[in-house]
């Protein structure tokens, strides 16, 4: 139950915003044991990687493409040691530096890719679902066609086309490649949900009030649809890490000069493994697995906590729980 502190009719809007925030996080605070455990474990792991990305220059002793210090070249394929905790690669790079800076690359790519795919997929889904008609049918057809392709294939094609163009094989190329693969997903999820929300009486009520379609979509449809998006976006982030690593592994990802990237490092380490050199592959591989696990936990945790609320709200007419202390109507 929300705060029962007396609110004056002149409550400043800041307070309303605070209330809204409290309400938005309510499902998480009220979630059951397992969901909450998953959620917080996910938050912990993800946050550790984010911290690592931001603090990379501070916590890493070397830069990701550094192969000598004080004029002394690092050993090639050196064992983990006091100077190089995770050893060095065949190019004398410090594995630990590459793992730490890798977090930076992953974060940049995933954030850009998510921002782009959300800002394309969500509005398109809203418009398509709300207005329906020919536009909707055309968009659904296009999106379904893209969706039918394996998304790694789409990402490879886009990455290949862009990297041969002037943009080159940097972070943006990888982000765009991933965006192209995910837009149809957001489009679908949002559109299908809009189609059901569109039939809700409160949407009709908004139209009856004289609201323009833009207002109806923004104020009445959007908020009730986006609740589904955070879990999907988080799960997608996990997926995007794998996709980026796959691109890197196949040689279509971030070019080694542009940034450290775990997938690329793993691909370089494949040949080392047969000669008993385990450290070049193990650490970047572990980083991938850990971050993907963290994001998946976070996403599933969100999913578990948000969806029961959605379900309860949809059948909400049964919870006629009155405001405590309010004048009871049937007095």
């Amino acid at each position: 139950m929300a705060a029962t502190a007396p609110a004056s009719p002149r409550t400043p809007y800041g307070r309303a915003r605070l209330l809204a925030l409290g309400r938005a996080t309510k499902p998480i605070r009220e979630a059951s044991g397992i969901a909450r455990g998953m959620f917080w474990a996910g938050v912990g792991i993800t946050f550790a990687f984010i911290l690592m990305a931001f603090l990379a220059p501070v916590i890493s002793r070397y830069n990701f493409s550094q192969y000598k210090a004080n004029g002394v070249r690092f050993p090639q394929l050196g064992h983990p040691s006091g100077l190089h905790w995770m050893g060095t690669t065949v190019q004398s790079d410090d594995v630990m530096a590459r793992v730490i800076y890798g977090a930076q690359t992953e974060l940049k790519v995933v954030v850009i890719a998510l921002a782009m795919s959300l800002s394309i997929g969500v509005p398109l889904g809203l418009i398509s679902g709300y207005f329906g008609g020919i536009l909707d049918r055309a968009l659904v057809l296009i999106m379904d066609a893209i969706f039918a392709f394996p998304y790694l294939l789409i990402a490879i094609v886009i990455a290949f086309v862009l990297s041969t163009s002037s943009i080159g094989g940097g972070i943006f190329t990888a982000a765009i490649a991933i965006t192209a693969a995910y837009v149809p997903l957001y489009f679908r999820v949002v559109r299908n949900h809009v189609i059901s929300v569109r039939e809700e009486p409160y949407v009709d009520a908004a139209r009856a009030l004289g609201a323009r379609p833009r207002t109806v979509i923004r104020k009445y449809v959007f908020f009730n649809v986006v609740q589904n998006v955070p879990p999907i976006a988080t799960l997608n982030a996990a997926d995007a890490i794998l996709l980026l690593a796959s691109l890197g592994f196949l040689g279509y990802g971030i070019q080694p000069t542009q940034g450290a990237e775990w997938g690329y490092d793993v691909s370089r380490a494949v040949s080392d493994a047969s000669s008993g050199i385990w450290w070049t592959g193990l650490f970047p591989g572990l980083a991938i697995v850990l971050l993907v696990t963290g994001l998946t936990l976070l996403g599933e945790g969100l999913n578990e906590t948000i969806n029961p609320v959605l379900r309860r709200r949809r059948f909400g007419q049964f919870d006629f729980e009155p405001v405590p202390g309010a004048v009871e109507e049937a007095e």
Partner: protein
Amino acid sequence: MRPEAAVARPDIAEGEPLVSIRDLRTYYSIRGSFADRLVGREGGVVKAVDGVSLDVRKGEVLGLVGESGSGKTTLGRTILGLVRATSGVVEFEGHDVAHVPEREFRALRRRMQVVFQDPHASLNPAMTIAQAVGHPLQIHGLERNRERLRIKVAEALERVGLAPAAQYMDKYPSDLSGGQKQRAVIARAIILNPVLLVADEPVSMLDMSVRAKILELMAELKRDFDLTYLYVTHDLATAKFFCDRIAIMYLGRIVEIGDAASIYADPKHPYTKALLRAIPEPDPARAVPRDLPRGEVPDAASPPLGCSFHPRCPLAFQPCGWESRDLRDLLEARWARKAGEAGVEEEEALFGNLDALSAPLISARLTPPRGRTAAEMLAVLERIRTEDPDEPFWKGVRRLEAVDGRLELDFHEPHDPTLGQSGDVEVACHLYNAPA
């Protein structure tokens, strides 16, 4: 320019038509399945509102009563412009709202508001009560100052009995009871100071204990704000004290309309009579057995011929629209009633598949199965007639004989009853207005 000035307010005197509906039709197209369309079969239409003419007079409460599926909600939504009319005219304060583009309609919407049946679903779960109730003023640009908006919202909330308003303003709909939510919905509707309020079963989803209170509130608001109500309900008992006039709707048409007092004192249409008899008596000692019209509401996608009430009407006679489907229903009802009794299976075998009777035709032709004769079929029908000679169906049969090994059945010509004056009310029934 004050934004209010944007909407012309023709002065309509008390009792003059505020809304004028003429021959209004609202059809929903039901899209056939993909397979249907492949073989060229069109999806049909549901004639939810099928030729309604009606005035809502300024200052009155017009009750729209009918069973589920009779098109009450659709009629209300068409007036509000939430669904497009298929044809006909809806004039609101002199503007033909059935055909103005949405853009122009928006300004008029301030003058007509709506309260839906389900208060929970009519409030956006993501908006606080203050945001929801204040939004109409923002939509129409009537109040841009947030402080003043909040004060106006508080006034509206207290007006509908949500006092002190501060206790409700920052709550979300899910924190309120059903009655409280419906009060908030009403506040949202009256904050624009409309002239017309379409209330679509505003209390039917509420607890018994709060229904009367909400209706009382609506009656108060009507007085204070000079409102006109179109009150949709299927509850004739509450309509009796709430409405000035009543329109009885059946399958998309008005079958009887008049002053509430006249309708309750002397219901004319057999459907109205049946509905009134079905009102549960508050005093259990005087309770009569519920006598709902027999059968179910027919499918609005292919309504009966003639008077669409005829399959359920105890008084139906020759011109009421008898047709082949009535014979099918008669036989099926008989077999269902007598399932297991001697001779029933025999009858079923004799008539076999009744699909031939499924098209709405005013003649029926039945061919007996191999080895049986039309005379046997005729004998069965004659036996059914002697068992229950009062069954109205037989009044509709013009000719019944076995000819050339076929059973031939012709019905009387169907006539559509139209609304006509009868005493104090208008009624659409051949008993009162003989077909031309």
